[in-house]
C-alpha cells in the first residue's frame, strides 16, 4: 500500500480536475491519455453529444502501471479471501456457540459480531481498492438538458387538457360537478368515522382514580398494609399502591401515591380545592404522614426522588420540583400545579386508608380539566 501512496501526486497535464474535498487523484495510472481523446467507450451509437469522457493516467502497458496493478490485485484478493474466512467463521460461530445464558450470549455475540464486521469491512475494502487502483480513471462530463419543457409543448398540453375538460362537460354542467363533490364528501369522512372505535371516549375517567373511602394503602412491592406506627421514621418516603389494584397498570398510572413522614411542626399544608370550596388539608394527614400523588402534574412521570434534608420531591424526567412541607407546591420546573394530596385516615385495625378519592384530577393537564 505504501508504494501506492508514493505514486500519488503524479498528475498528467491533461488530468481531469480535482474537486476540493475529494480523495487525491487515484494512483493506479491505468488507461491511456491518448485514447482518451476519443469519447464514447464502446459506443456503436454515439452518446458523445451528451457524454464527454476523460481518462487520466499512463498507458496500461507502462511498467509502473503493471507493477502497481499486480500489487493492488494481490491486496484485493487478500481482502476477498479474508471475507471468505470471516464468513466461514460466522457460520461456525452460529453452529458452534450456544446461547441461553448471559455469558454464552455475550460470547456468541462477540464471535458473530466480530466475524460479521470483518466480513463486511474486508469486502468493502477489497471493492474500494479494486475500483480505486485497478479500474482506469475515467471521468465523464454529461450535458444537462433543460428541465423545463419548451413553450410549445406546454401550450399543446394545456390545449389538450382544455379540450378534454370541455369534452367531459365538467365545466358546462355545474349540477353534475357540484353533486359529484357533494356525493364524495361523506366518503372522505368515512375513514375518520371508522376510527371511532379505536378507544372509548375519555368522559370523566381522567378525573377519578380507584381510591375510595376506606381503601387500604399497600406498600408497593410488599403489597402489605401499613400503620402509622410502622412508618415512624421522619424523612422517609415510600411508594403506595391501592389495595385491590396492586398489579393493575391502568389503575396505578393514576393512583400511585407517595407517603412521606415529617417531624412534628414541619408540615405547613395550605388549603386545597375540594370542588369549588377551599378546605384545610391538615386533617388529611395522619401523625404527620402525608400522601401525595406520585404522578407528576407535568406529563405524568412518577415523582420518584425525595431529598430528606430539603423536603424536595423531584421528578427525574423533567426536574419539576415540589416542596413537600407546603402541600407539594412547585418550586422549579415545568409542572404548573402542586401534586394532588390524598386524604388519609386510619381504619378500625389501625391501618392507613384513604378518606376519599383525590379531590382533583391527578397527572398531566388536559383541556377538560378546568
Amino acid at each position, binding site marked *: 500500500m505504501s508504494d501506492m501512496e508514493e505514486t500519488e501526486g503524479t498528475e498528467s497535464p491533461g488530468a481531469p480536475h480535482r474537486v476540493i474535498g475529494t480523495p487525491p487523484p487515484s494512483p493506479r495510472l491505468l488507461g491511456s491519455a491518448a485514447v482518451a481523446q476519443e469519447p464514447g467507450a464502446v459506443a456503436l451509437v454515439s452518446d458523445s453529444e451528451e457524454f464527454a469522457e476523460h481518462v487520466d493516467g499512463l498507458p496500461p502497458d507502462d511498467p509502473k502501471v503493471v507493477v502497481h496493478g499486480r500489487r493492488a490485485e494481490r491486496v484485493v484478493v487478500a481482502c476477498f479471501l479474508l471475507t471468505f474466512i470471516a464468513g466461514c467463521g460466522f457460520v461456525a460461530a452460529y453452529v458452534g456457540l450456544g446461547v441461553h445464558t448471559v455469558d454464552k450470549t455475550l460470547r456468541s455475540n462477540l464471535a458473530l459480531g466480530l466475524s*460479521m464486521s470483518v466480513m463486511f469491512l474486508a469486502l468493502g475494502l477489497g471493492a474500494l481498492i479494486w*475500483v480505486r487502483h485497478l*479500474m482506469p480513471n475515467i471521468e465523464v*462530463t454529461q450535458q444537462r438538458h433543460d428541465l423545463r419543457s419548451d413553450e410549445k409543448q406546454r401550450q399543446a398540453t394545456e390545449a389538450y387538457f382544455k379540450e378534454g375538460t370541455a369534452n367531459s362537460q365538467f365545466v358546462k354542467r355545474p349540477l353534475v360537478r357540484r353533486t359529484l363533490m357533494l356525493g364524495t364528501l361523506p366518503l372522505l369522512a368515512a375513514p375518520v368515522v371508522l376510527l371511532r372505535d379505536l*378507544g372509548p371516549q375519555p368522559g370523566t375517567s381522567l378525573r377519578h382514580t380507584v381510591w375510595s373511602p376506606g381503601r387500604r394503602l399497600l406498600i408497593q412491592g410488599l403489597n402489605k398494609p401499613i400503620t402509622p406506627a410502622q412508618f415512624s421514621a421522619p424523612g422517609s418516603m415510600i411508594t403506595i399502591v391501592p389495595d385491590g389494584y396492586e398489579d393493575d397498570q391502568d389503575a396505578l398510572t393514576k393512583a400511585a401515591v407517595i407517603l412521606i413522614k415529617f417531624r412534628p411542626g414541619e408540615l405547613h399544608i395550605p388549603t386545597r380545592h375540594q370542588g369549588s370550596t377551599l378546605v384545610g388539608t391538615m386533617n388529611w394527614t395522619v401523625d404527620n404522614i402525608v400522601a401525595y400523588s406520585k404522578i407528576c402534574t407535568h406529563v405524568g412521570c412518577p415523582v420518584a426522588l425525595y431529598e430528606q434534608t430539603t423536603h424536595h420531591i423531584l421528578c427525574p*424526567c423533567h426536574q419539576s420540583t415540589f416542596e413537600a412541607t407546603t402541600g407539594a407546591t412547585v418550586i422549579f420546573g415545568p409542572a*404548573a400545579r402542586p401534586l394532588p394530596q390524598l386524604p388519609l385516615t386510619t381504619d378500625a385495625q389501625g391501618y392507613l386508608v384513604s378518606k376519599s378519592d383525590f379531590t382533583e384530577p391527578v397527572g*398531566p393537564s388536559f383541556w377538560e380539566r378546568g
Partner: protein
Amino acid sequence: MSRPAVNSDTDFDVSKPLKGTAGWLDDRFGGARGVRTYLLRKVYPDHWSFLLGEIALYSFIILLLTGTFLSFFFVPSTTEVMYHGSYVKLDGIKMSEAYQSTLRISFDVRGGLLIRQIHHWAADLFVGSLMIHMLRVFFTGAYRKPREVNWLIGILLFSLALIEGLFGYSLPDDQLSGAGLRIFEGVLQGIPIVGTYLAYFLFGGPFPGHDIVPRMYIIHVLLVPGILLALIGAHIFIMFWQKHTQMPAKGNTERNVTGQPSYPYFVAKTSAWFMFIFGALALLATFAQINPIWLYGPYTPVAISSASQPDFYMGILEGSLRAMPAWEWNFLGHTVTFSVLIPFALPLGIVLGGAAFWPFFERWATGDKAYHHINDRPRNAPVRTGIGMAAIVFYGVLWAEGANDVLADFLHIPLYTVTWIARVLVILGPILAYVITKRVCLALQRKDREELLHGYESGIIRQLPNGEFIEVHQPVNEEKRAVLEAKKMIALMPGPGSEDDNGVPPPSSRGVLGKARAVANRAFAETIPVEADGHGNGHHGNGHAVTGEEHEAVGAPGSAALPPGEGGEE
C-alpha cells in the same frame, strides 16, 4: 459509427445467460438506451459530502433487513406473563409478552442480540445521517431551484424517521421506553380540545392499556416504513431525473455534471460504502451495548430511573420540556398547558417548518429565480450559513438540556443552573451564532478575494535590496481560481431610501411585506465582491475596495454590518 474503446481489454464475450436475459427483457420493454444513459452512465460527482445521503439510504436498508429478522421473533402483545427464561435475574417477574419476547431475542435466539443491536444502532445512524445530509444540502444551497420538492420530501422523511424511531424503541415495553411513552401520552393529553380523545383513541383507553404495543407495532413495521420506502423512491428518482448538483470546480458549469459513471465505478464504490456502513454497525453492535432492556426491567407506571434519556433524536423534545417554565392558562374554564404544548410543537416546528419554508423565503428575499446546479460554498451565502448555524445552536442547546441532569452531575454545577443557562442560551445563542457566522463568512470571502487578486501566501520570504522583508504571494492555480470565481452575487433590490423625486417608494418595497423584503434582501446582498479583472484599485492602498453595492449594503439601516474600512487587509 464505431469508436475505439477506452480500454483495450474488451476481447471477451458477455456471458450468454446475462446477454440472453437482457435481450429477453429488451424485447419486452426496450430499455437499452435508457439503461445505458440513465443507469449505467449516470454521472456521480465525487465529493465526500455526497456520501452522507448514502449513509442514510444504507442504514434504512439495514433497518429493513434486521427489522424483518426481529419481527420473526417479537410478539407485539402486552398480555401479562410470568418470566421463566434464560435471564435468571428476572425469573418470576410479571411482564408483557412484548418484553418477554425481546428478552428471548436477546438471550435465546442465536445472533438475536447482535441483530437487535445492529437494528438500534442503524436507527440512530439513520436519523443522524439524515440530519447531517440535510445540513449539507442546506449549507451548500443544494435545495434551490429545481430541487425544492426533493428538499420537502427530505424533511418529510426526517419527520417520519423520528416517529418511526420513537415507536420502535417503545415496542419492547421496558421501563425506560414505557416512561417515554407515558410522556408522549401526557403531551397528547395536553393538546387543546382534542387531546384527551387523541390519547384515548391511540391507547385504546386510559394509559397504558393493552392496545398501544400492537398498534405501534403495525405502524412501525408497515405503515411508516411503507411511506418511507415510497418517499425514498421518489427522492432518488427525482435525484436521477434532475441529475446531481456539483461543487464549484474547474470545468463545472450550470449546463453539465462531471463525475464518474455509475457502472462500474459508482456501483463498486457505493457497494463498498454499504459494506463499510454495515461493517461499522456490526462493530458497534459487537462492542458497544445499546438499549440493554434486561437491565431496565419491565414497565411499571410507578417506577422510574433517574438520568433517563430517550434516543438522541428525541433529545430536543426532552430538553424543551425540561427548559420550559411552568406556564398554564385557564381559558374559559379550560386548561391550556403551555408548559407542554410549547416544548412539543415549537422547537421542532421552528427547525423543520423553518427548513421547509426556507427555499421559498430565500427566493423571495433574493429575487433569484434561476436554476442552480452548482452548489454554493457556505461562505458565499453568509445569511444562509448564519441562519443554519443559528438553527444548529438552537437545536444543540435544547438537545443538551435534554441531558441537564447528566451535565449538572458531570460539571458539578447545580441542576437548576444548567436549566437557566439553557433558557438564556436558547434565545441568545442563535443570535450570536448568526452574527458571528455571518462575519466569519464575510471575512473568508475577503480572504478569497485577496487570494484571487494577489495570490496566496507562499511562505517564501524574500529580502529586498533595501533590506525590507516581504512574503512572496503566488497566483492561485486554475482549479482554485475556478472555485473562487464561482461565487455569485445577489442583486440588490430597490429598498428604503430609493424613493423617487416625489418621495414615492418603488412598488416592490411598499407595504409591510415590501419593507420586510427589502430588509431581508439587503442582508442577503451583503457580500465581498470578487473582481477578477481590473483589480488595481484594490491594491494595498485601500484594502477594502468595495463597490457601491457593498457600501450601500453595509451602510444599510438595521444590518449588523461592519463600518466601512474595517476588515480590510492590514
